[in-house]
């Protein structure tokens, strides 16, 4: 198993972006594609 170890850094900051698709509420897990 490959694990990513954090390197010692002065500051860590990361932000990723994508198209927002949020549709769910907590009563159900929405699949973003049909189950295989």
């Amino acid at each position, binding site marked *: *198993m490959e*694990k*990513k*170890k*954090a*390197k010692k*850094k*002065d*500051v*860590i*900051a*990361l*932000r*990723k*972006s*994508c*198209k*927002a*698709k*949020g*549709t*769910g*509420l*907590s*009563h*159900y*897990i*929405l*699949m*973003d594609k*049909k*189950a*295989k």
Partner: protein
Amino acid sequence: MAITKKKSITDGAAPSRGRFVNTGNGPTFQAIDIGHKEYAAVIEPDTAFWSLVPREKIADVFCEGDLVAAYTGKSKLFAREMDMLRFGLTPSAVYFNPTERCNMNCTYCYIPEKMRRKGKHMPEKNLLKALDILKRHFGKTIPKGSMPQIIFHGAEPLLNREAVFAGIEAYGKDFLFGVQTNATLLDDAAVDFLTSRKVSIGISLDAPTAEIADRTRKNWEGGGIFKDVLAAMKRLGGYEGWSVICTMTSANMRHLTKLVDFFHECEVPTCLMNILRCTLPPSRSLKPRDHEAAKHFLAALDRTYELYERTGRKLTVGNFSNILLAIVAPAARRLMCDISPCGGGRCFFALAPNGDMFPCSEFIGLDHFRSGNLFHDDIPAVLDSEPFRLVTGRKVEDIEPCRGCAIRHFCGSPCPAEAHEMNGGMDRMGAFCEFYEEQVRYAFRVIADGKTDAYLWDGWDKGMKDTFRIGSL
């Protein structure tokens, strides 16, 4: 006499270049303790920007310009992203209740007992008509290439199985379908039908033993259903599109770590461990104290990591993954309870068996949040009605102490239904606060320790691009 306004020399903005943190037009940075031995977090709450800074260097962030300059260059982009996420989405999912009835009487259910015991089914012809109306509506509102989602929810949707299956059969090309069920009616034929049509299946289980699970999830005679759920889990083995929801209460929270072991052993692909909703009074008898619930929940998350390290196989806890995503990739979040406004009425809405529309399933049973009927009213008008706007207009900026909270966009102050019913208004908090604080602190520790991938599903960042990344300033 008309008054001509003189144009201000600053054109409405403060004459500040925004060079300094926390004054003038400078960014508002709040430092928080995340319980990590090396790092603390610095957060710009409005744009959900964060950075992890060595504890001994926190003062440097506020006194030197590098992080401020890096952030300032991206601040408008981040603000637009949050604005889109919070105010720019339109509904693409419906929580579709095909029956009021349930064959169970769980202590914490948010649907009133009278409705579950003696309620009505939606006739098959009405269910098909409803799907047709929704298909036509989403055909006008959802971009081509996207599929709207229908989740048959409850009460217990499989009590009206023939109608539900007829709908899935007739509209399988028009919607992504899901079913959330208590699993008692999930027999071989039902599993065959749903899996062959690639329907997502969610079931519910609160503990790894009958003794604990049956305390809160029981039938009308008071009997438990643990064995039935286990049998359904075996039938679903090997299917990718199933998940289990555990509702965390004072009755089961001490057993969450064992439940993680159990789910992992059963090869459950994904689970949710949701804190109890306190919308209706009976559920409040099971309300745990925040810090105790957090202690057990975080221990369960630790356990998922230990199991991943040992076996290489993940058990993703969806509600925590969503918090982690809210931090590293805000627009990628899937669940919309932990952002404000929440998803109720703006990302999804709920449909009762008679066609009545509600902002969310949590409001079914609360008459003052009923707003229009799918069979008689215009959907856009309902989405803009006063009961819906009460929910879609609920923002952390209007709630104390959330408006000053550094993590307000990683939490969202859920849930409007319990805020309204339990605490007296939409401008109140929901039932829990410290529980959410601890989740966010844990998520930052996960990031600091480089373990993010272990808590998210494989390929979680596929198709995403980095908009900010720094290792050292």
